[in-house]
């Protein structure tokens, strides 16, 4: 692995993150840092190999906007499922819905599939190439619009450009 600026930056950020995690998990006990420093170094090394650093920045405004979007949508999703579950006649109109993703290959698509499972009315079922199969609770809902919104937010967050699909 070449020692680039991105790698150095990632090592610093990730070891700081793992150090905070260790501190939290041990309630800040000072005598735990012998094992702790080894664990932090090991975790950082493994993480660099499993998820190599990339040259893009995670945009802070993108992160904030994504978090707000995610929280609002989670509330809607939970409320929708609760509504269906507690109504005497549930009124579900489920079905599969396939959609071509505009995100490039990689972590973005996996994150999108996972995010959609937590958002209102959609559950990721299969991801092959750029084709994502969703299960939807209500076929009449504007699934396409919802997926595109989530996709754009994720692209903003990760600094990715979206492909246009025909």
């Amino acid at each position, binding site marked *: 692995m070449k020692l680039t600026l991105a790698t150095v930056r990632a090592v610093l950020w990730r070891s700081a993150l793992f150090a905070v995690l260790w501190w*939290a998990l041990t309630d800040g006990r000072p005598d735990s840092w012998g094992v702790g420093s080894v664990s932090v170094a090991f975790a950082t090394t493994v993480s660099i190999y499993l998820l190599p650093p990339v040259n893009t920045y995670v945009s802070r405004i993108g992160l904030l906007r994504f978090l707000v979007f995610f929280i609002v949508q989670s509330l809607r999703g*939970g409320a929708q*499922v609760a509504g269906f*579950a507690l109504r005497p006649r*549930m009124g579900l109109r489920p079905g*599969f819905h396939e959609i071509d993703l505009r995100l490039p290959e990689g972590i973005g698509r996996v994150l999108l599939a996972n995010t959609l499972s937590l958002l209102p009315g959609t559950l990721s079922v299969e991801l092959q190439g750029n084709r994502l199969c969703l299960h939807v609770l209500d076929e009449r809902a504007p699934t396409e619009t919802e997926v595109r919104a989530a996709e754009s937010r994720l692209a903003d967050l990760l600094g990715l450009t979206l492909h246009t699909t025909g």
Partner: protein
Amino acid sequence: MSLVEGASLALLIAGAAFFFAGTVGLLRFPDVYTRLHALAKADNLGLGLVVLGLLLRAPGWATGIKLVLIWLLALLASATVGFLIARRARRHGIAPWRAGDRE
């Protein structure tokens, strides 16, 4: 009861309500896919609200970070496991329940 304690109590009760609704959904929904929806969404929101409620009572930062970590791990696990179960079901040819079938 202080304002913080009251807010904490309200969040905990709201969280429990979503857990309850998610469980009712798990029992009432007609097939594996719709049941996964109930688990993934209502329970995550329920856990999120419970974690928020407990954060207001957390004695320190270490406990707070642990609580948030629990929520993040549960979100990740729930989205991943839900995806894997749904994919397996579809590959086995389990057709989704359609409106008009018996509930």
